[in-house]
């Protein structure tokens, strides 16, 4: 127990990915501040019915609130830009929490989660990559204790959400999810979900099964993200789960916030895999270019090769962490597993690749 705490406390690694998470959180903080500014234009919340958690005397005046909202917008810009990023994200988190406490009518779990992750990220070296002023190359290693705490926060969110549903008979039976489909199915259709699918989802037996699946998913993710053997599947399953929720419900930025938090589970290193491409072939050059543009987590070192006996005939060859090579659909699966935009495709690609000789089974690679 003590050795585990010591390992967590003293763990260091490459904080490159933390910069990506910071940028996403910065964008979400910016969107949140803009929403507050728009609402302020329509009227100051303190002039109407509000329900503060803090004493009324601590609710800011219209002028003070206006200053606060403008400050939140500017701080979010600093967070995204990576300039004075850690103090900016810390102040954003504290200011956001304070505003939440000034009117619980405006309380939303996604906003509270955003401020929690922001505060924890402020305590991590999230300012060493994706900075407008250039990345401080001399600081490639940093402490990861706060990032691990943010990961724990994600598990706590899943545990609280899944646990409360498990204890609720209406949720367990599927009654809640079924009624939600009855009430909001038309919104999903308006967003492009096929009507036949929505009708099918609104069937009692499907609703009941989906409720159990949702509860099981949340509880599985709370633990599955931590186990090395289940992590990649948990990340993929969780990504699909949140994208489905995004398509069928209004959750503000919660989907993107959670997917950003998923990046914290990436191994804290940079360019540990290699992508070799045939620079004499258009296909090779195009794949290399696309991967270098989309490789936001810095997973690949991308290089042209001088064709040898193994690589001849291949546009792209990927060398995994363990030195094994992946080509064809195996290489595609490896790219999908590491490139955030393609990650939803990892599941089917890995399934297909598992029938090939090299497979896609080496989870740690």
């Amino acid at each position, binding site marked *: 127990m003590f050795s585990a*705490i010591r390992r*967590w*406390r*003293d763990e260091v690694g490459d904080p490159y990915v933390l910069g990506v998470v910071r940028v996403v959180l910065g964008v979400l903080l910016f969107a949140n501040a803009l929403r507050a500014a728009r609402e302020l234009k329509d*009227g100051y*919340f303190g002039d*109407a*019915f509000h*329900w503060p*958690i803090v004493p009324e005397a601590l609710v800011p005046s219209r002028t003070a609130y206006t200053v606060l909202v403008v400050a939140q917008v500017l701080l979010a810009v600093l967070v995204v830009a990576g300039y004075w990023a*850690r*103090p900016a994200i*810390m102040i954003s988190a504290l200011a956001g929490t304070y505003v939440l406490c000034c009117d*619980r*009518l405006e*309380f939303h*779990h996604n906003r*509270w*989660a955003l401020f*929690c992750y922001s505060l*924890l990220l*402020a*305590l991590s070296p999230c300012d060493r990559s994706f900075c407008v002023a250039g990345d401080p190359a001399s600081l490639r290693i940093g*402490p990861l*204790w*706060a990032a691990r*705490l943010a990961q*724990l*926060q994600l598990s*706590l*969110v899943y*545990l*609280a*959400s899944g646990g*409360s549903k498990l204890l*609720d008979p*209406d*949720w367990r039976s599927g*009654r*809640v*999810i*079924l*009624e*939600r489909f*009855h*009430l909001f199915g038309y919104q999903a259709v308006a967003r492009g979900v096929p009507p036949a699918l929505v009708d099918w989802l609104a069937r009692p037996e499907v609703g009941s099964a989906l409720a159990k699946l949702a509860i099981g998913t949340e509880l599985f993710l709370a633990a599955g993200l931590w186990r090395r053997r289940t992590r990649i599947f948990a990340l993929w399953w969780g990504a699909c789960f949140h994208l489905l929720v995004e398509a069928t*419900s209004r959750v503000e930025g919660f989907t993107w916030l959670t997917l950003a938090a998923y990046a914290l589970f990436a191994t804290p290193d940079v360019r540990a895999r290699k992508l070799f491409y045939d620079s004499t072939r258009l296909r090779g050059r195009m794949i290399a270019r696309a991967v270098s543009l989309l490789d936001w987590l810095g997973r690949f070192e991308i290089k042209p090769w001088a064709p040898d006996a193994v690589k001849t005939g291949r546009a792209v060859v990927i060398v995994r962490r363990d030195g094994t090579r992946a080509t064809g659909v195996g290489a595609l699966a490896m790219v999908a597993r590491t490139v955030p935009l393609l990650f939803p495709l990892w599941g089917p690609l890995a399934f297909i690749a598992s029938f090939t000789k090299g497979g896609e089974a080496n989870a740690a690679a």
Partner: protein
Amino acid sequence: MLHVGPLGRVVFAACWIAGQTTLVLTAPLRADRAFGFRMFPEASVMEIHLVREVGGARFAVPRGEWNARDRSGQVRHFSWRDRVHDKTLAAVDTPPVFASYGLETQVARLQHALDDVADHIPGDAETTRLGAEVVFRKNGREPGSLTLLSHSRLP
């Protein structure tokens, strides 16, 4: 800046985990379950119909609008929506609206809104209490109803 030493990390983490766990476990004690991360807790809908009590009798307040005399006898106009801007609570005499975060949350908010509006209509020298009749369907069940009343506002 923002560097935390080894002991500080352990203390901070212990406080953070204890704090978050407490917030989650005590969520049922708060009417709106705030800070409890209870996503999509219900699929309930509600209708709000306002009433006001004048001299012990209750009168409907269609669409949340009413006229009442002030202390000088002048007739003045009042509107629920002048003070209540929240979309769910402002939906008076409308078709059922979704009770986001659950029925209990919205009922607690409505109770506070009634008290708040009762405190912010000094020009109404007739209304002794504001009230709301709430018709609801919890998670698709048969409709139910309840009545809420603000605190008394006139001596």
